[in-house]
């Protein structure tokens, strides 16, 4: 059973991986996209975004490349590695399990 802090961190990892799994993005783009896709409910602080990106990259789940970008200059663009995809699947599964459990609990309690 993961501890609460692990859950939070794990959630951010999940969000990042999910955001860039189809389309590689730079940091700014990831933050924006999480915000828009969640209907402005979730906002990722830069204070945790960049350390999380670096951590994921160090774990080999995402990799980065400096590419021309929509920002008008080269930006560091992150994409998911094959290991990252597997990790994403694992995280999705555990998230689904958790959220349905929480849902059930709220419904029936």
């Amino acid at each position: 059973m993961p501890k609460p802090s692990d859950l939070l961190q794990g959630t951010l990892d999940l969000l990042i991986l999910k955001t860039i799994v189809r389309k590689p993005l730079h940091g700014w783009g990831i933050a924006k996209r999480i915000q828009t896709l969640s209907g402005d409910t979730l906002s990722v602080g830069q204070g945790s975004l960049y350390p999380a990106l670096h951590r994921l990259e160090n774990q080999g789940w995402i990799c980065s490349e400096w590419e021309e970008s929509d920002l008008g200059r080269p930006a560091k663009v992150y994409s998911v590695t094959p290991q990252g995809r597997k990790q994403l699947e694992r995280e999705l599964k555990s998230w689904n399990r958790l959220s349905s459990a929480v849902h059930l609990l709220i419904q029936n309690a």
Partner: protein
Amino acid sequence: MRAIRILRRRLHCLFHGSHADAELQREIEIHIQQLTNEAIAEGMTEAEARAMALREFGPVDRIKEKCRDTRRVSRIQDFVQDLRYGVRMLRQSPAFTAIAVITLALGIGANTAIFSIVDAVLLRSLPYRDPNQLVLMFNVPLNRPDALSGISYRDFTECLAQNGAFSQIAGNAFHDLTLTGAGEPAIVNTADVTPEIFPLLDAKPLLGRALLPEDGKPGAAAVAVLSEDLWRSRFGSNPGLIGQSIALDMRSFTVAGILPASFRYPEGAPHQDVWISIMQDPLFGPLASKPGVRVMGLIGRLNPGVSLAKAQAEMNTLGARFAKEFPAEDSGFTIQVQPYREAVVGNLRPALLILLSAVGLLLSIACANIANLLLSKATSRGREIAVRIALGASRARIVRQLLTESALLGLLGGVAGLLLAAWAVRSLRPFLPAEVVQIGSIHVGGPVPAFALLLSLAAALAFGLAPALLATPSNLQSNLKEGGDRTGQRGGQRVRSFLAIAEISLAMVLLVAGGLLIRSFALVTSVNPGFDPNNVTEAEVSLPQFQYSTPQQWRAFADELLERLHAQPGLQDSALAVPLPMDRQGQPAFAFTIVGNPPLPPGKSTTADYATVSPGYFHTMRIPLLRGRFFSYQDSPSQPNVAIISETLARRYFPNQDPIGKQMRFGFPPNGDTPREIVGVVGDVRDAALSKEPGPMMYVPFAQAPLYGGEVVVRNSLSASGVAAAIRQAVRSIDKDLPVTGIAPFRDSLGQSTSRERFRTFLLATFSAIALALAAVGVFGVISYSASERTHEIGIRMALGAQRRDVLHLILGQGAKLALLGLGIGAVLSILLTRFLASLLYSVSATDPLTFAAVAIVLLGVAAAACYIPARRAMKVDPMAALRYQ
């Protein structure tokens, strides 16, 4: 695959750290730029937008530090960086570095030096196969288990035939023989053995063969095995020596083989030059056939898996059987088994362990001192550390950095200590007690450097951890606000005081130990030995027993020698004796009975030390006559046998009676039953060692109990070399083939007999002096730091009317509090610990109040002196300046 990518990335980061940092900077810059752009789009000015973006992004440096922390490689990188930083810090404050390194070098050096002795003596295994299987066996009286003696040849053969616990048993005895015919006549240390000893010890000859079982039989041809040293020094390494004959005590022996220099036996005793069968020894050979003469020591090798207890049980049974079968010789005796290692190093262990503990304490004091220095330094670095923490460095990171600095310091100190130890061991070697040197080569090698390295790292952790933790307080704000110089001030001062108290109390323990040993040594050396050793020269003359084989010849030689000595000017006051005081190397005491007393119950015996002396002996040695008369030249073999006894013997065995005219039966074997009339009582003599209370002694005239040679003592004021030449000349004029050995002032023998005491006293005194100096530096550091911290307070006090004297009292009072607390704790610790010293002390109690008081006074004095300088400085504080400054 993944592993490789991660590795590649980490390597990349390691080598391109600055590159990665630049990338991170650029990445963050882009983000902030985007935030700014958004804000501008919402209508802000560029400056407002930028400020707002930075606010929204958050603490850039902290985020960067966090990102960097995710690179695992940063551990190594940090370490390299910390190391560089550490070197820079140490170079920036050379005075601090020098003091810390010297302090540490003293601590590590002392530990390493002592450890090298411990390694050689206690840890390194003895140079034999399965040394733990080796045991020695002795006959001991049932009622006196500490009175070890040898075992008779008859009992040895019985042991061989009847034991089950041992794979091999061999006998050995040691004797000096005279080697002639190969250059100057020389005394050679000879091991008289039974041939079983060679397979038992796995001795493989370098050339020829060792002794074979048939060489050990009575009546076999006389063969000898030589040591490689003797073969090289005396016979020019001539391989043709095998099969040739050499002369030992004027009798010819065929050389059978050469033993390599690597073979040494026994450990912790002089090197043996010649090995012969005990049957061939001129002295022990004839004695071996007498069942009552305990002529040999026994060494045995236990069968694999046999415990010492089992062997002892078997020997108990055997001893009981001997007592029943041979009651005349063996009743009242049993056989004791002792591990060989125990016999070699057992008596050295307590002193070594005490020295090891002493240097451990010394290192603790050194660590406390350095911790104190580091604390003061870390405090002045408080601001730097606070800024780094504010910029996002984690506490663990800072602690790690400070510990790296300590480790660096520790290693520097360790290397310096190792050098110091190597130097100390080399220069102390001549002063090491002989039995320590003979056990194994003592040098700073093998496991010793590793020990020093580990010790210095452990020390670094010990002195670095507290300062590092205190330097990184949890409350950041106050640090920055106060300008950093109050970092952990409360805690710091408390820790500093604690360290100073610890130093004083540990120093007290060492000083008490040193003081007790010094006092005990002073008592030993100033003890009245019962004779006057000044201006006495001794020399040893040993007669080859095949040439001088009869007591008549021995007596004639002694008479001739003394006559020639007395004829020379300045040598009139000379005599002959066997043995001299301090030269009683394991010479057993002889049993005696008093004629007319009821017979002793079986198993009980009365014993006394025995010496045979020429008439002038008591006068030459200045041993006082208490009753009766000295020996005279009239006490010849044709006259009734006489004896002189010592005061203790007279008091103990002739209580309330006059011993003069009474008769005792005793004598050198085989004359153990000769009745002798007591003609005199002389003063007690410290005979075995200065630290041993004199025991009962009995003397006989040399003419009535001659031996094959003896020790010459000459009292005069000539130069030692003049006396030596005169003695040599007198001996040569009788027989040019006789060697004279061991010519030395008698004082030297006395010095030898206390060399162990002197050595350990010297070491412990040195350690406690260093401890005292370190503790003084520690107290000085704490008090002067605290005084400078209190400058402001002192300024206010003086402004409010405090006198200089009050300031002096304030500072000295603080020091006195530390010192008294330290002394109190130290006294308790000392009382608890000095009992382990008790076995090394001579007529001083382990809690000797005089020593405790003296040490307390010295420590208080030193502490007061250490406080006085900072107190003087505090007295000179100008109140105005002090107030303005803050």
